[in-house]
């Protein structure tokens, strides 16, 4: 009985393979157009009708399944057996760090037979793939989710915060959370609000090049994250990724001030309207922020894990139909984060809809779609009008952190006034009173 379910084959190819009693991994002989091909049957992903085999040379080729094609099974596949290497002796002097994974593969092994990539998330696996870790920390691992990061929801943030809090209460020196990079900054903001009074650091980490390739940034980032979680002098939620496109340093961004800024580069995460907390290079931690919450294992964590997902993000653009705002209000949403233009504006055509929203007790906040800089709604009439309707300006918070903050505030209270007060309070460094220039000194020849 062939096991082709999940192999991805359909139609004629499926039929031919089933008739020949083939499963993925079996050795086949295919005759087509007067030539014969031998190789291992490979699963098929996505579109296409060809049967894919891996030849002895290691190459995969696709042979179209037509009525003239003959398929014969000439050998049974053997599933490679992997025996995890023995756990190296954990050095008792090293800090104890828990690595949690939410999905993606921060560490993985390649099955060269079928091309499948398997996650390597047990502690012994991790030491095998990133041997440097054994000299940095005593590592424990915990798989919390196996979800693509775009499929994570605020409910997952709540559970994740609870899991982290539990481990911290049990007494660990730091927590690392491996996370898909797409929504990692949302999670880092969410955890920043949910995990208050942290005694030890909580560091999110990801990779822009998957860990099955030799050039992956995963190992460097993981080493930086584990080092910071175990030893950094701060106790905040941070996000560890490459500083530049080189494998030199990992920077730890503050959880509320970090944003994914490039689709594919290793240094995609940037601290926006703020600076990273620290940098890890050659296993040395350098602090790069003048203020942070100090590590204090005796401090009691305060867990505020709830989020309200009835919050919408509305990006203003020329021609935005105010009916969009009315729609959310009618659907019972409790908060709307307006992504305004420039210093914090939306067109006058939206004014009535916004008034209707605030009148109904919907909390309407505003952050700028410029990403960089601070909103100031006192400069122009439009801004002053919006303030008068009860719109809450979010200062130098960029829209994604603003959205998460609004969800969190409305998760703490259903009272719009209380939620607004929470929204305005600086809970986790999301507001910075001073916006500092990013510029550096001109080179000498640039002037006197």
């Amino acid at each position: 009985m062939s096991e082709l379910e999940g192999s991805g084959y359909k139609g004629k190819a499926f039929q031919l393979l089933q008739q020949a009693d083939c499963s993925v991994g079996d050795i086949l002989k295919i005759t087509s157009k007067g030539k014969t091909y031998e190789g291992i049957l490979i699963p098929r992903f996505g579109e296409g009708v060809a049967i894919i085999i891996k030849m002895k040379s290691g190459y995969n080729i696709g042979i179209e399944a037509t009525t003239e094609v003959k398929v014969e099974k000439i050998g049974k596949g053997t599933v490679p057996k992997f025996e995890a290497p023995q756990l190296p002796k954990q050095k008792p002097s090293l800090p104890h760090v828990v690595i949690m994974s939410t999905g993606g593969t921060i560490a993985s092994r390649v099955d060269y037979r079928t091309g499948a990539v398997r996650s390597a998330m047990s502690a012994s696996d991790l030491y095998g793939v990133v041997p440097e870790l054994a000299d940095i920390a005593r590592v424990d691992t915990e798989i919390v989710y196996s979800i693509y990061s775009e499929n994570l929801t605020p409910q997952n943030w709540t559970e994740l915060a609870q899991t982290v809090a539990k481990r911290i209460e049990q007494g660990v020196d730091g927590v690392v959370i491996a996370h898909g990079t797409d929504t990692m900054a949302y999670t880092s903001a969410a955890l920043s609000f949910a995990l208050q009074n942290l005694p030890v650091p909580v560091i999110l980490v990801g990779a822009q090049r998957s860990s099955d390739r030799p050039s992956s940034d995963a190992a460097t980032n993981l080493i930086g994250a584990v080092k910071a979680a175990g030893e950094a002098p701060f106790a905040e939620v941070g996000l560890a990724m490459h500083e530049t496109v080189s494998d030199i340093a990992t920077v730890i961004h503050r959880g509320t001030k970090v944003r994914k800024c490039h689709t594919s580069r290793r240094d995609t995460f940037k601290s926006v309207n703020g600076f990273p907390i620290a940098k890890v290079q050659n296993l040395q931690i350098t602090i790069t922020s003048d203020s942070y919450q100090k590590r204090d294992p005796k401090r009691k964590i305060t867990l505020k894990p709830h989020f309200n997902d009835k919050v919408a993000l509305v990006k203003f653009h020329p021609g935005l139909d105010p009916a969009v705002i009315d729609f959310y209000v009618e659907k019972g949403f409790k908060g709307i984060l307006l992504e305004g233009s420039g210093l914090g504006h939306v067109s006058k055509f939206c004014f009535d809809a916004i008034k209707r929203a605030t009148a109904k007790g919907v909390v309407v906040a505003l952050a700028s779609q410029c990403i960089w800089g601070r909103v100031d709604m006192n400069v122009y009439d439009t801004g002053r009008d919006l303030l008068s309707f009860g719109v809450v300006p979010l200062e130098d918070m960029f829209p994604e952190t603003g959205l998460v903050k609004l969800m969190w505030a409305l998760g703490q209270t259903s009272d719009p006034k209380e939620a607004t007060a929470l929204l305005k309070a600086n809970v986790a460094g999301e507001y910075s009173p001073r916006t500092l220039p990013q510029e550096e000194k001109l080179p000498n020849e640039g002037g006197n």
Partner: protein
Amino acid sequence: MSKTPIDYAKVGLKCGLEIHQQLNVNSKLFCSCPPDLFKEDPEITFLRRLRPTQSELGQVDPAAFFEFQKGVKILYEANRKSSCLVEMDEEPPHPINLAAVEVVLTASLMMNMQPVDEVHVMRKTVIDGSNTTGFQRTTIIALDGWIKVGDKTIPMQAASLEEDAARKTGTQDEGKTIRYRIDRLGIPLIEVATAPVIYSPQEAQEVAFAIGRILRDTGKVMRGLGTIRQDLNVSIPNGALIEIKGVQELELISTVVEYEVQRQLGLIAIKEELAKRGITPESLKPDFADVTAIFKDTKSKVIRKAVDKKQTVLAVKLAGFAGLTGHELMPNFRFGSELSDRAKFWGRVGGIFHTDEILANYGITTEEVATLRKAVDAAEGDAVVFVADTAENTQDALKAVVDRCQEACTCIPQETRTAKDDGTTRYMRPRPGAARMYPETDIPPQPITAELVEKVQAHLPEPADKKLTRLIKQYGLNEKLAKQLIDSEYIGLFEETAKTSGVQASTVAAFLTETVKALQRDGIHTSHVSDEQISAIFKAVGAGELAKEALADVFTWLSKNEGKNLQDAITALGLKMFTEADLVPIIDRIVVANKQQIEKLGKNAFGMLMGAAMKEVRGKANPELVGKLLRERLK
């Protein structure tokens, strides 16, 4: 080393060829960058480490893992003209370049191969740094064909399309940082492989030549040094399957094969001699002696330098190896060189010393050698190897030396070697394991439809025999010239020039074959002159702006002055052609000077006068014009 010619049939030589050639298409294989190299300082540099990925079985490539453990870093150099984020491994690859697929399809059909129905791009793990990703993207386009070479049918295994690698530009930090330039990375390469059915060095060269001609016939491959690389697989019974990478010159192939057979025969002889001497792997111990003190007052420059830098001189005894380290395996390549290559690779040292060489040449005294032998307890039949470098590097180097000597007792090690310009080969790395290919999931499979194959089939380039007949007929060439043209890389340029320049086809053909070859023999780098320049030269001749006698001089000048153009050459060589206005006074003067003769000979004086005029203006004037002016003057 055997001095008598080797009987290859008796030796049982088997050889296979892999020919790689860059494709002349507009952009790289997986992005839109132009396939251009740069010579200037890089605009961008970045530093990376490559990490051996674990296979499902926990296997890693030993050489790769070693380099990784040693903390080897790679410094990449780039400029914005030739590389984008794709080559930097900062952006996923774009879909495969279909123009490149079509070129490989064309070559495949010319070699009677069957295209696959669907192309799957694979990642071939390569973590020496030559690919930013840690793998080379490669894909099979067609399989199982044949070509005729003389009377023999050579089976062709496969035609692949792959991305070229970055080029190494140096090392720094005692070899711990390797520099690579990524301009070449991603240039499409065709790879065609024969079955291992070649039985002599000469035949290897002929087959490579035949394949090269087919590739050229596609009209879509690059020319010049560095655009073609021939890899060889060479094996003999009781020897090993050796992969030789990067033979750049076609003419070198037979020598490379010959030397490799010599090397393997030499290694077999050493193995037999060791057995006779009773030496086993256990006889060779990795016991290293720090002999720095012996050399504290040495006159040897190399060792002096290391000692002054507070580095280490480390020595090891090779029991029973006396005389064998000096055994010549290839010209100027002894078993000691074999050890040295290993030491360089694994220990990052500049080289080693061994007691089978004349150490006085390096300023090492007999007293020093005697003390050294004593320090490692070497008896008369033993050899000693010593090396000066950092403590870590000398340890790694001597460990590699001992490993190699242990292998010498039992086998000829399978390895990947690289070809040098003199035809000898050097150790490159151990042969990689077979399990190092996995699918490139960022690129969707590319179907090769029946329509595409039909389209390519319908436009296949003319086969060589048909082309020969046509060249003779169409351009009035003799058979010898036509044959030379077909084998020449300038065949495409010839046809274009013969049609458009106005210069007689046989003149163009003779220049592009015989003259160019003669210039190459004189050491002129003919590849430095571009097709556009050659085309311009002939156009100038056709227009009467340049004498055909000056062709070779202009060509030579341009080859030595890259970046300059034809006008520069004409000016520099003083080849400016005389115009009518320049010629009139000259002819006038000649006529006046020969007045008596003209009166005596009348019309018959023309030949004599023409001779006199041409003597003065040869190479700088169009003879037809001189004749015309002279005739008018004589009226």
